[in-house]
Each structure stands twice: as C-alpha cells, then as structure tokens.
C-alpha cells in the first residue's frame, strides 16, 4: 500500500511548558494508538530542535560540515509519522487527526519509494 510522510511543522523558539504539552502528547499518543490498531502505523519520531542539527555538503570530492539546520526559517519539522493508506483521502483523514492532536500544521506527502516497516 502507498506510504505517506506526515511532517509536523512547529514554530522555532523555546519549547512550551510541560503543563502545556502534556495534553497534546496524550492526544498524539491516542492518534498513534489508533493508527496502530488500524494497521496504518509504520513509524513515528520526534526530533530535537534545529539548533542540534549539522549539515554535510559534498563538493569537489570533499564534504563540508556546517553547524545548524539546512534551512533557517520560522518553522521547522519537529516530528513526523509514516503511515500506510489506500489513497490521499485516507492519508488526509489521518493527517487531520494529527493536526488536531498536535495543534500544528501537518504536511502530507506521498513516498515514492524506500518504504519502511
């Protein structure tokens, strides 16, 4: 079945308080459980902030190492979920649940190859 990458976009800046995050994390876990029970869950992960990122660029036989994320912006990918879905409508339905749970924008993108799980 087709796999889709659901990327979670979150604003840069300090993480919200634990009190603020607790119900959100609970909602996200509920979506993940639902995904698993539906057999749609493939993989999910949350990331450390972009300040922890390192970029490697191959050029003229050398690989340049740069501190920081590849793209500096106001938002970054804070986490992602890979799901299995029959078509875009099914994938968007999961994406909607994730958007409600995270309260953040979700980008839904079909995977061309390299399926995992």
């Amino acid at each position: 079945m087709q796999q889709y990458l659901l990327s979670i976009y979150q604003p840069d800046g300090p993480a919200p308080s634990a009190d603020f995050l607790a119900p959100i994390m609970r909602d996200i876990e509920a979506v993940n459980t639902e995904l698993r029970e539906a057999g749609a869950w493939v993989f999910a992960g949350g990331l450390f902030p972009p300040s922890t990122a390192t970029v490697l660029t191959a050029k003229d036989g050398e690989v340049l190492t740069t501190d920081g994320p590849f793209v500096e912006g106001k938002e970054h990918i804070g986490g992602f979920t890979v799901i299995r879905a029959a078509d875009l409508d099914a994938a968007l339905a999961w994406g909607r649940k994730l958007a409600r749970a995270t309260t953040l924008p979700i980008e839904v993108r079909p995977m061309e190859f390299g399926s995992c799980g």
Partner: protein
Amino acid sequence: MTSEPASAAEVERVFRAEYGRAVAVLVRRFGDIDVAEEAVQDAFATAAERWPATGIPPRPAGWIITTAGNRTVDRLRREASRADRHARAALLHTRGDPPEGGDPPEEGPVRDDRLRLIFTCCHPALAPASRVALTLRLLGGLSTAEIARAFLVPEATMAQRLVRAKGKIRDARIPYRVPEEADLPDRLRAVLAVVYLVFNEGYTASSGDRLVRDDLCAEAVRLGRLLAELMPDEPEVLGLLALMLLIEARRAARTTDGGGLVPLAEQDRRMWDRDRTAEGQDLVRRCLRRGRPGPYQIQAAINAVHSDAPTAAETDWSQILRLYDQLAAFTPTPVVALNRAVAVAEVEGAAAGLALVDGIDLGRHHLFHAVRADLLRRLGRNSEAAAAYDAAIARAGNEAERAFLERRRTTLGR
C-alpha cells in the same frame, strides 16, 4: 455506416459533448489520466478523418470509447514488452485488479464515470486554479491554449499547471471516486465553486478575448447541466444551474452594440432569452420545493424575482430583500452585505441603504464605491457622489465598467 456524411461542425459538436465522458471511462479503465486523454484524442482524430465520409455512428461516444480503448490496449502491450513501468501498471488496472491493499468497493448504484472525474478534478488537495484548469481540460475538452487564453496566462504556464496537477493526482493517489455521504456536502461545494468560477470568469469579462469568454459561460452551463443530470437530488446543483441560466438569459441585453455595459434596471427586457429564463425559473421552483435552501438556490431565486418583473419599476424589492436576509445568514460576506444594502435602498430609501453601505468594509472593491456613488447621487449629494465615482473608476476591472461609471459620473451635471 448508414448515416449521412458529417460536417466538421458536427464532429466538433460530438467532441464537445462526448469528450469528458470518453476520458472519464478510460481513466477508470486505465487508471492514468494522460493515457486516457491521449487515447481519446487519437480516437477523435480518426473520427475527424472518417466521419465526414461515413457519417457519425449511431452511438458516437461508444465508438470513441471502444476505439480509444482498443488502441490503448495495443499500445500498452507494445510498450509493456519494452518494460515500461507505467504501461505495465496501467495494464494491471485494465484486468480489473484492485490496487494493492484495495479500495473498498463503491457502495450503492454504479455512478457515471464523469462524476468521479469531476470530484477528482475538484479535489481540495489541488489549488483552486488547478481545479478549474483540470475541469475545463478533462471534462470540457478545452485545449491548454484555450484555457490559457481564457485566464490570461501564458500557454506554457497553463501547461505546467496541468502537468503538475495531473502528477499530483497520480503520485499522491488522489482517488477516482465519488466521495462518501459524510464528505459529500463539502466536496460538492468545491465542485460547484469551480463551475461558478468558470461562469463568472466568462461573465464578468474582466479582460481578454470576448469570444473565449462567451465560450466559458457556455461551458459552465454545460457542466452545470451535467451535474444536474448526474445529481438530480442535490438542490444546490439545480440552484447553480438555475442561477447561471437566469444570468445568461440577459446576455444580449447586458451590453450595447458598442460593448458598453447596460445595468439591470436599464436593460431592454424583451431581449432576455425566454427559454433560458423559463428554464431557470422552473428550476428555482423545483429546488425551493425541497426545502433545503443554500446560497446558489437563494441567488437563483433573487434573479428569478428580477426576471419576473416586466419592467424594472415593477421589481418586487421586498421579496429580494427577504432573500438577501436569507443569503446573508448562509454567507455573511461583505459583497452579500453590499447587495443587501442595495435592496434596502429600494425598499426603505437611499438614505437607509447608504447608512448600511458606509458600515461595510469593502473599500478596495470598485462595486462598493459605485453603489455608494449611486446612492449619494439619488440623495442629491453630487460632489460626494462624484468623488465616489472617481474612486470606483480608479478600481474598475475592465474598460466596459470604467466607461459605464464615467458615463454615470457625467450625468451628475456639474
């Protein structure tokens, strides 16, 4: 082949009428829009060569679909032997295998393939401009060049837009099916919006080639008829068709020979197309009887009230005002508020209308200033009216509107 030889115009008429149906059937069969389009275009090219001599077959759509299907199977077999990935995938679909994992079988009676195609073209995951372009291309059979001319973008840009949209449908797997009952109202709204957008683009003639624009209105009405045929139980579908017919009926009366704009109140009502008006009014009665009103039905009803009046002076403005009250409850937009204020001015006087207009936040729109100017003129506040006309003229979208507003401004008699 017993038919009379066919003229090029007749072949063209069949093309316009049957292109969408043929593409829709072949998309389902081959699971690929490009393959379907190419096949149907090939089949029509053959028809254009043969039919002038042999006549149009009794079931032209059937002939086109069979010819296109057979050729595609032959072509895909050849290409499959050259290990073409897409061709193999498409052949897989022709054997009727469900895609891996399987879509659930469609509930209820088998729907027309064109309905599936419309919902795919108007999928909310596609940008509105892409929905319009795809619908005109795949269901209307308009060429990329025609669509580009109608929307005043370079042909290369329109081609790119279509390629990108079709690529997304394929790669992201936008499904080829009629949405389930729960999603239908939202999805149908998107479809109706595309058809009405095509109509308005043709109607308002904000710029561009006049002939192409008349074609857009005709195409929108044709799509509206198709939807009404495929979804006869959806009152908003009937409402949209009625709305377009009632507006389209006034086309001849709406412009002077020189292309000048004639407002509704000054139109020669004998020039209104009686058949379209009657059909529109009949549709309004039919859909309102269902008791499930919506924005298109109400707008159609407003236009039906205008059409009922033998002269502008006999217009039943209080009924129009009641309908605008209803419309404002459905779609509380500034434009609706502005139109409602016009009705208030007719029922309660220009001062009452102006008081409402001044509370509407629509200063960037030329219509706002034009309505204000007209009300100020009726109140004898000529210098303020002149300033409002100037503001309207500065914001008008096309030459005809600008010329109309300038004429109006000169009647202030300064």
